[in-house]
């Protein structure tokens, strides 16, 4: 990261956008205290991200790009275990997991092992695991990567609904149409540097010759392929 200044407002949906290698995942790693920034400050809920990482982690839910679940356990077993590690009561785990499973269309598959889920089901199950402790801030790293249109739409609707419950969402995606629709503000970064930020409508309006967020993105990050 180099000179990135990112301010995520409470109860907002912020999209962190950038081509491959832009530094989106590094940024998330810093926010959740997995990586210590060499320089500069990163604060969440007014606390230093690395120094108070355990405190911060109580209030944030991170949905990694990888399916961070135990493949040989069923969805229920995964949620019981993860919920117990968050010190949630059995009843609360049951109540929240039930709601989320129902909402994300996995209720009838809850007794199946995660390893036997389809790609889209795994993505949804991954999201549920990160929301069991009802975090105030949800950080999603490519939550819709490699899923079918139906699953994408379901996740999209769910995130909008979740946001309505006064939750803050920070998410990264390569699906710019999705970001345009979902985010109140987007931040475009490239090669670890801040490029620009603003609401999708504002950015489209102020960037000449653009009709959608993807045009704005290409305008500022160029057409060269990134590895």
């Amino acid at each position: 990261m180099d000179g990135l200044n990112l301010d995520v407002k409470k109860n907002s949906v912020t999209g962190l956008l950038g081509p491959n290698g832009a530094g989106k995942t590094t940024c998330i790693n810093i926010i959740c205290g997995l990586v210590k920034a060499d320089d500069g400050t990163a604060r969440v809920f007014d606390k230093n991200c690395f120094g108070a990482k355990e405190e911060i982690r109580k209030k944030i839910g991170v949905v990694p790009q990888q399916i961070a679940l135990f493949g040989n356990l069923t969805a229920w077993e995964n949620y019981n275990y993860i919920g117990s590690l968050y010190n949630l009561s059995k009843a609360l785990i049951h109540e929240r997991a039930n709601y989320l499973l129902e909402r994300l269309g996995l209720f009838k598959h809850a007794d199946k092992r995660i390893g036997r889920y389809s790609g889209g089901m795994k993505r949804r199950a991954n999201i549920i695991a990160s929301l069991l402790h009802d975090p105030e801030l949800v950080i999603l790293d490519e939550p819709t990567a490699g899923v079918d249109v139906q699953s994408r739409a379901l996740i999209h609707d769910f995130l909008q609904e979740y946001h309505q419950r006064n939750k803050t969402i920070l998410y990264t995606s390569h699906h710019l149409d999705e970001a345009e629709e979902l985010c109140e503000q987007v931040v475009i970064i490239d090669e670890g540097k801040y490029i620009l930020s603003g609401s999708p409508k504002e950015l489209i309006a102020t960037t000449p010759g653009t009709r959608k967020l993807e045009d704005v993105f290409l305008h500022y990050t160029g057409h060269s392929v990134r590895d």
Partner: protein
Amino acid sequence: MRKIAATILKEWILLKRDLGGIALLFLMPVMMIIVMALIQDAPFKDYQELKFDLLMVNNDKGKLAHEIIEGFIKSKNFNVIENIDGKQLTDESLKKYLQKGTYHVGIIIPAGATAEVVNAANLISNDLSKKLGLGGTLPARESRSTTYVRVLFDPVSKPTFRSSITFAIDKFVTYSCSNMLLQRLSKMAATVEDDKNEATSDFEKVFKGIGVKEEMVFEDKNDKKLINSTQHNVPSWAIFGMFFIVIPIAGHMIREREDGSATRVALIPYSWLMVSLGQIIFYTLVCAVQFWCMMAIGLWFLPLLGLSKLYLGLNVFSLIPISLSIAFTATAYGYFIGSVFKTINQALPLGAVSVVILSALGGLWVPVELLPEVMKKVARFSPLNWGLDAVNTITLRKGNLLEVLPDLLILLSFGLLLWIASMFFNQSRKISVQ
């Protein structure tokens, strides 16, 4: 506490579903114990406990040959064979059978052996009689060159086997010669005392007055059963199997890092230590159960195969803390391997090979007492040896918990050190949400 319990439950479910892992943990050591105990049963038995087929060519037909053969038959260690397929054995046919490997040991008593021994005995008796002024001489001629009772072996026989058999045969020949000399002296004494039988019996008593009798340090009816294949192989391979937990633990840890579930746990506040503790407790218990299952094999299954029953000593309950200490160290070792190595391809072969090496060095394959001096010193650096030594102190040396405390402290300290080092590696490893 809840986090530890949840982790134990999760590990239990995962292990239940990993049939390969369960087979590795429980079936592999069972197979090792059965196979090795059966293979090593004979080498562990003193040669005097075994019965060998002994080919015999009796070219002498005299008293000496008769006494040697009787001696072998009475010893119950030899099955004396003079005819095969109805044919009397000859020097040539005996060699042929030994060369084929059908039989492993044969004896050829030369013609005239009795005459030679009788002559020698007469010469000695005459000499003694003359010196003592007893009068009377037995018929004798000048002694000829030494007559040998020839012992022949299957060419693949081991030197220890050869020396044991040669020693036993030599003992019978010497006994027969001495007996013959005694009879000659008795005969002469009887001439003087006119009481043949009494004199002979007195001579025998004198010779039986000094002998060798083996006794054990402890007074216990089980003493004679202790040094056997079961007693060596059951604890050895049980400990070996316990350390083989390195495979499921390391594989499991690396897979969790690779599939991202370790990242999930890392993102949950105040969890890593509790999760690590839960895993250590779970696998320690699995290893301890494994140990006692292997003991059960030694107690109840091996005797069904004709092997000795495992003897657990006088302080069986002392084996509980010992098994838990070994289990903890084995688990910590697996945890260490799973933490240090990045990939399964690195961890599993190296983990397995290291356990094999540590077990060989630690005297699990061959008792430490039989190792060369240098290796005996090296053995003291193997955690498997600390465990085996503690078990042997309880079972073979009839020790108690106090006596094995140094071994247990070393085991536990080593395990703790490995666990701390593993946590350090895990904490310093760069974890990413990706």
